[in-house]
C-alpha cells in the first residue's frame, strides 16, 4: 500500500509538469494582455502599456517566462496578479474560506439529499416514492444552475423579499446576527448548487443500490432473518458505495474550484469568480495558479478515491 501510494505520487509529477506546460503555452498564445483597457484610453500614452509589459516580463519569449514561472513556483512564490498587483497566494487565500463554505455546504446538502432518497427509492423500485423522487431528480438536473439561480432570486428576493441575493463576505454584525445574516445570504447559492448536484447523485445512488440489492448475498442476509435496516445499511449500501465514492471524490476538487456561474449570479466572492475575472482580464499568474492548484487536487483526489476502494472493498488489491 505504501509503495503503491509512493508510485502514484511519483507518476503524478510528470503529469503535473505536462499540465502546467500546456496551460502556460495556451495562455501565452492567447491574444491580449491585462492592460488592454489602457490601449483604448486616449489619455494613456502607448508607452505606459509598453513599459508595464516590460516591467512584468510579458515581452520575453514564452519559454523564458515558463521557466521563470516554474522555478519561482517550486520555491513557493506564486507571483503577483498583473491586474491588482497583489500576491497570488494572498488573493486565493482571501477567496478560499467563502468557496469552501458555500461549495462545501452545497456538496454536503447534495449528499444528504442523494443518499437517503437514492437508497430508499432503490429499496422500493417503481413505488410511488420512487416515481416522485425520479421525477424531481430529472427536473433537478435538467435545470441549469443559472436558471434556478435566477428563478430563486425572482421568487425569494424580489417577490417575497425574504432573502438577500448579493453575497457579502464581510458582514458588519457580531454574535448571532452575524450567523443569521450569513445563513440568510448563503441559503440560495447553497440550495441552487446542492439541489442540482443532489439530483444527479440521487439517480446515481439509486442505480448503484439497485445493482447490488438483487444479488444473492442480500437474499441470504434477509433469509438469515436480519432486519431490513441492517441488510440495507450494512450489506447493500457498503457495496453500492464504491462507484458513488469515486464520483463524490472526483467532485471534491470542484469545492476548491468554486462554481463559476452560480458565484457570478449571487456575487459570491469565491475562487470561481476570481478565475473568471482573471480570464477576462488576461491575468496569467492568477489563472495559472488557480488552474494548477485545481489540477493538483484532481490528481490527489483521484488517488484518494483509489485508496478508498481498497478500504471499502478489501478484494481490490494494490500492486
Amino acid at each position: 500500500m505504501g509503495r503503491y501510494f509512493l508510485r502514484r505520487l511519483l507518476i503524478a509529477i510528470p503529469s503535473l509538469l505536462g499540465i502546467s506546460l500546456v496551460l502556460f503555452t495556451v495562455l501565452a498564445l492567447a491574444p491580449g494582455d491585462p492592460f488592454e483597457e489602457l490601449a483604448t484610453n486616449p489619455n494613456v500614452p502607448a508607452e505606459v502599456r509598453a513599459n508595464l509589459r516590460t516591467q512584468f516580463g510579458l515581452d520575453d519569449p514564452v519559454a523564458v517566462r515558463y521557466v521563470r514561472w516554474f522555478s519561482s513556483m517550486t520555491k513557493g512564490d506564486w507571483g503577483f496578479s498583473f491586474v491588482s498587483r497583489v500576491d497570488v497566494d494572498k488573493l486565493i487565500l482571501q477567496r478560499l474560506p467563502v468557496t469552501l463554505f458555500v461549495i462545501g455546504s452545497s456538496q454536503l446538502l447534495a449528499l444528504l439529499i442523494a443518499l437517503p432518497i437514492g437508497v430508499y427509492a432503490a429499496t422500493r423500485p417503481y413505488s410511488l416514492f420512487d416515481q416522485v423522487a425520479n421525477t424531481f431528480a430529472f427536473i433537478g438536473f435538467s435545470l441549469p444552475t443559472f436558471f434556478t439561480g435566477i428563478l430563486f432570486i425572482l421568487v425569494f428576493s424580489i417577490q417575497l423579499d425574504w432573502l438577500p441575493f448579493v453575497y457579502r463576505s464581510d458582514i458588519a454584525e457580531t454574535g448571532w446576527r452575524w450567523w443569521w445574516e450569513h445563513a440568510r445570504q448563503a441559503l440560495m447559492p447553497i440550495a441552487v448548487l446542492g439541489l442540482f448536484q443532489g439530483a444527479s447523485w440521487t439517480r446515481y445512488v439509486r442505480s448503484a443500490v439497485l445493482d447490488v440489492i438483487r444479488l444473492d448475498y442480500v437474499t441470504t442476509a434477509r433469509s438469515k432473518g436480519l432486519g431490513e435496516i441492517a441488510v440495507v445499511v450494512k450489506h447493500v449500501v457498503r457495496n453500492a458505495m464504491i462507484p458513488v465514492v469515486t464520483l463524490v471524490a472526483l467532485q471534491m476538487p470542484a469545492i476548491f474550484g468554486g462554481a463559476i456561474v452560480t458565484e457570478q449570479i449571487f456575487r459570491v466572492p469565491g475562487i470561481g469568480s476570481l478565475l473568471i475575472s482573471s480570464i477576462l482580464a488576461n491575468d496569467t499568474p492568477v489563472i495559472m495558479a488557480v488552474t494548477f492548484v485545481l489540477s493538483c487536487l484532481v490528481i490527489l483526489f483521484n488517488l484518494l478515491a483509489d485508496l478508498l476502494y481498497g478500504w471499502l472493498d478489501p478484494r481490490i488489491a494494490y500492486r
Partner: protein
Amino acid sequence: MDEKGLHLLIDEVKQGRVSRRQFIQTMVGLGLTAPLASQMLTYSGVAQAQAKSTYKPTKRGGGGALKVLWWQGATLLNPHFAIGTKDQDGSRIFYEPLAAWDTNGDLVPILAAEIPSTQNGGLSADGKSVTWKLKKNVQWHDGKPFTADDAVFNWEYASDPATASVNIGSYKDVRVEKLDSHTVRVHFQKPAPFWADAFVSTRGMIIPKHLFDAYRGAKSRDAPANLKPVGTGPYKFVDFKPGDMVRGQINTNYHEPNRPYFDTIEMKGGGDAVSAARAVMQTGEFDYAWNVQVEDEILLRMEKDGKGRADITAGGNVEFIQLNPTDPWTEVEGERSHAKTKHPLFTDPAVREAMNLLVDRQAVQDHIYGRTGVATRNFLNNPQRFRSKTVKWEFSVDKANQLLESAGWKRGSDGIRAKDGKKLKLVFQTSINAPRQKTQAVIKQACQKAGIEIEIKAITASVFFSSDVGNLDTYSKFYCDLQMYTTTMTQPDPEIFMDQYVSWLVATKENKWQGRNIARWVNDEYDKAYRAAQSELDPVKRAALFIRMNDLIIESRTVIPVVFRPRVSTVSNKLRAPLSGWDSDFWLLKDWYREA
C-alpha cells in the same frame, strides 16, 4: 456663430443681459461641451458661478451604512495605476484631487482653496502657468498635514516613466513648482488653453508623499499603501478584497463641516448590470449601482417598484457610424483599408448623403435605447435640455432614392442599385450587443428600401475592441465598409476627443492600428483647425475652431452620429447623490446623504 458673435455674447453675459446658463446652453447647441463653454467665461473674466450645495445634514455621521454596487469590482486602490473607471472610483473614496468637474462642466474646488482664474491671479496672462492655492488645515487620514509637497510629489511620481502611472500623460509635459507650503504652480511648455488637467478630476487624485516617497519608479509595486490607502477623503480605509469589496469608515477629521453623512461605506463588486439594477430598484439591498447598461424598457419596469430610480447623466459619449473612406477589400502594402486607397462606393458623395438620410435615429432612440441613447446630429454632445433647436437631421427614404437615382445609381432586376458595374452592396460591422444588432437591423431595412444591400456582421466585443494586431476583426483595423461603436469622451475638454480625425493619427499597420483616427478621414482644413486650436489661447477663438471641426466631420458625411449615450446609474429613492457626466461617480461623495 463666428468669433465676433461669441465675443459679443460673452460681453452680454458680463453685463448680465444673458445668464451664464443661457450662454452655456447656446454653446452646447453649437456642439461644444459644457465644461469648455464654462471655461470660456472664466477666461473672459466672468466669475465662476458658485454652485449652491444642496447638502442638508447638519452634523457629521449618523447616517448608517452606504452600500454601493459596482458590477466590476475595484481591483486596485492606487489612482496612479487605475486600469479602468472601477479602480478610479474605488480610489476616489479615499483620495481627492484639487478640483473636480460638476455636471455643468464647472470646476469645483476639493483640496484647492479656490479655482484659479484671471481675477485671482491663478491664471497667467501668457497661458504658460497656473497657480493653485491649496486648502489649509487638511489632514491625511493618519493625521499628517496635507501640503504643497504632496502635490509636487504626485507630479514627480506620475511623470517618472519607471512608475508606469496611467496618469503620466497629464504630468509628463508639465513642471510643478512649490511656491510656499500651500501654493503650487504648474508650468506648461507652451501656452495651454486647457490647463485643468494635472491635479484635476480622476487623474488628479493626490497620494501622500510620506507613504509613497520610498516607493517611486520601479519599486512602486511594493508600497504597502497601494492596498491600504491613506488619503484625505471623507472615508477612511478599512478593508479591501480585490475584485470583491472595498470598505471604508467615516473620517471624523474631514476638512469640510458636517460631512460625511454615512458612518461606513461598502463598495461591492461583481455580477452583472441587470441584477445590480435589481438590487437597488427592486429589493433595496443596495443604495446605488454604477454604470447600469440595461435596456431602458427594463429600467422603466423596475422603477415601478418604487424603491429606486435610474439617474441619467449626460457626458460626451456618442454612438456613431463610420463610412470607410478607404478600400477595405483590397490589400495594399500588407494592409486593407490603407489610407492611400479610395472606397469604391463611398467616393460618390451621393451615396454618403443617402446613407445619412437612411439612418433613422429617432426610431433607434424610441424603440431601442429610450432614455439611454438620445438621437443626435452632433459628434460633440451634452444633456438634452441644452440641445440646440436649430440643429437638424433628417430621415427620408424617398429623398435617398431620388438622390441615388439622379446620381446615376439605377436599380437592377434584384432591386439593388448599381452604377458602372458596381453594386451598392455594403458590409456593416459592430460588436455583439443587443441594442447594436437592433440598430443594424433598422438601418438595413431602410437601406433595402433605397436599393442598398447591407450585410450585417456582429463581432464579439472582446475581439472587436481589442488591440490585437493579429486579428482582422478589430474596430481599429476597420476591414469593412461601415462600422458602429461608441466613442468615449473621458475628459471634458474636446482636444483629446477631436483628435480622432487628424491626419497624423490615422490607424495604419505602421502604428499597429493604434492611431486614434480609425475613421481614416483626412481633411486639410480640419488638420489646420486642430493645430490652431491646440495652441490657441483665446478660448473664444478656440471654441470657434472646435465648432468648425465638428461641422466639417458632420458635413463630410463620413461619420453619422446615431445617439449620444448618457451614463446611467440606479439610485435608491432616498439617497441624494450628486452625479456628474464629466467625472467619477464619487466626485462629490462627501455630499451624499440619505433623506429621512
